[in-house]
């Protein structure tokens, strides 16, 4: 495996192996010395052409804990804001000897373009492209779900997950649907019809427009951010109505089964899709998702970068 562009590139065995590796690497984050020498001398570039807090610092922390050199590169304050093309940026990174590029871009498919081109020889890791995919987020969500709900199982067989909210604009939802399905979980999407993408009927999911009917019968409720910056049209009458029908509040939390968990990929719109009371409740694993993100991203970097160019084995 050289790139991580989409969950659809992964087999079930590969996905589970990344989660297992992350479980072992979580030990490092808990230990006194939070550093391994594994990627010493490798250069990883964080190329963020779109804003991010969690994903960028998470990849940065992951790379640094594996002793790689990290170069951060964001659209603001770089030549990207002067209109430099992706190709010229990639050629620059290649000339600087980047072994991997972690890319976030507002255009769906930008990481694919980078990986398919001969502009650079390093690995490409998709850290979120437009409304397409966000594979590392899906892997850390699966890791968190496995830890809380799988009862020692290696996959997510039979675990019921509701993904609630702005599915239309959500790359997190797309990657999660693919990965959860690959690992055997049963996914229900809950959203107003306006926030479901065209062709959603062909996805391997159930669809509901009524959160109250779904919420009592799932192990995981994953709330999605309402992406107002991508909404150039009216998708619901007003935010108060959206909150009333699709927001997670204390009353709905009471309907959930006692060992279920609440997730959110962040950043949250407190008061819109989730109330502060629920976000800070004991049922919420939102902060833990961030911590798990570092372990999972270490595992991704390890799997893509630690091995040599040849797929040879033997002692």
């Amino acid at each position, binding site marked *: 495996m050289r790139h991580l562009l989409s969950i659809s590139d992964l087999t079930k065995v590969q996905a589970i192996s990344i989660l297992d590796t992350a479980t072992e690497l979580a*030990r490092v984050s808990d*230990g006194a010395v939070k550093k*391994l020498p*594994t990627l010493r001398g490798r250069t990883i570039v964080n190329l963020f052409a779109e804003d991010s807090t969690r994903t960028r610092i998470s990849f940065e922390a992951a790379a640094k804990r594996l002793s790689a050199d990290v170069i951060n590169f964001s659209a603001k304050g770089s030549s990207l804001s002067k209109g430099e093309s992706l190709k010229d940026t990639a050629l620059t990174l290649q000339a600087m000897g980047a072994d991997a590029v972690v890319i976030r871009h507002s255009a769906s498919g930008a990481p694919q373009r980078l990986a398919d081109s001969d502009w650079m020889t390093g690995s490409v890791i998709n850290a979120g492209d437009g409304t397409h995919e966000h594979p590392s987020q899906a892997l850390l969500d699966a890791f968190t779900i496995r830890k809380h709900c799988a009862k020692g199982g290696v996959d997510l067989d039979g675990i019921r997950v509701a993904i609630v909210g702005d599915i239309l604009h959500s790359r997190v939802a797309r990657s999660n649907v693919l990965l959860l399905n690959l690992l055997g979980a049963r996914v229900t999407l809950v959203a107003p019809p306006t926030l479901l993408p065209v062709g959603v009927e062909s996805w391997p999911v159930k669809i509901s427009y009524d959160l109250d009917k779904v919420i009592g019968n799932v192990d995981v409720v994953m709330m999605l951010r309402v992406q107002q910056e991508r909404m150039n049209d009216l998708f619901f009458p007003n935010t108060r109505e959206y909150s009333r029908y699709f927001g997670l509040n204390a009353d709905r939390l009471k309907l959930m089964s006692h060992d279920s968990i609440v997730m959110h990929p962040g950043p949250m719109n407190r008061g819109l899709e989730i109330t502060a009371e629920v976000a800070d409740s004991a049922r919420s694993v939102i902060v833990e998702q961030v911590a798990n993100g570092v372990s999972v991203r270490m595992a991704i970097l390890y*799997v893509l970068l630690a*091995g*040599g160019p*040849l797929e040879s084995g*033997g002692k």
Partner: protein
Amino acid sequence: MSLALSAPDITRALTRISHEILEANTASDQIVLLGVPTRGAHLAVRIAASMASIAGHAIPVGMLDITMHRDDLRMRAPRPIMPTSIPSCGIEGRDLILIDDVLFSGRTIRAALDALGEIGRPHTVQLAVLVDRGHRELPIRADFVGKNLPTSITQSVKVHLSEVDGIDEVSIEES
């Protein structure tokens, strides 16, 4: 393929190593065993049980994964990471015995010494191996050896243990 050690040979070698470790470390309550996964970890459990019956008290035993500290990671496909478990007493100030199945280039043991540095500072670190097949690439030697097995560099030594392979046996294969 030729058989180098049979099941009774392996048991005898491990019993002898157990006695030798206790002989060399008079403060037997300070000993901690750490096996290198996969097979070294199983050997460590066996040696700990054998030492416990000789010394009359339990010997702390754990396992130490060294994958992330290898210097040859870039030369082959990524290896899976194995679990590490350190006994609750820790390794600080203890007499630590590293246990592996085959001692070959010495690079695994170098990596293990690096990995230990992150966990603590033992009083001494000693090395016990079931088979020493020669061809060292680093200045490393074993303190306790089950069997010295002269091999040519092209041969490979296969260790089978009943815990993982269903059978106890060491063989030499031509590659």
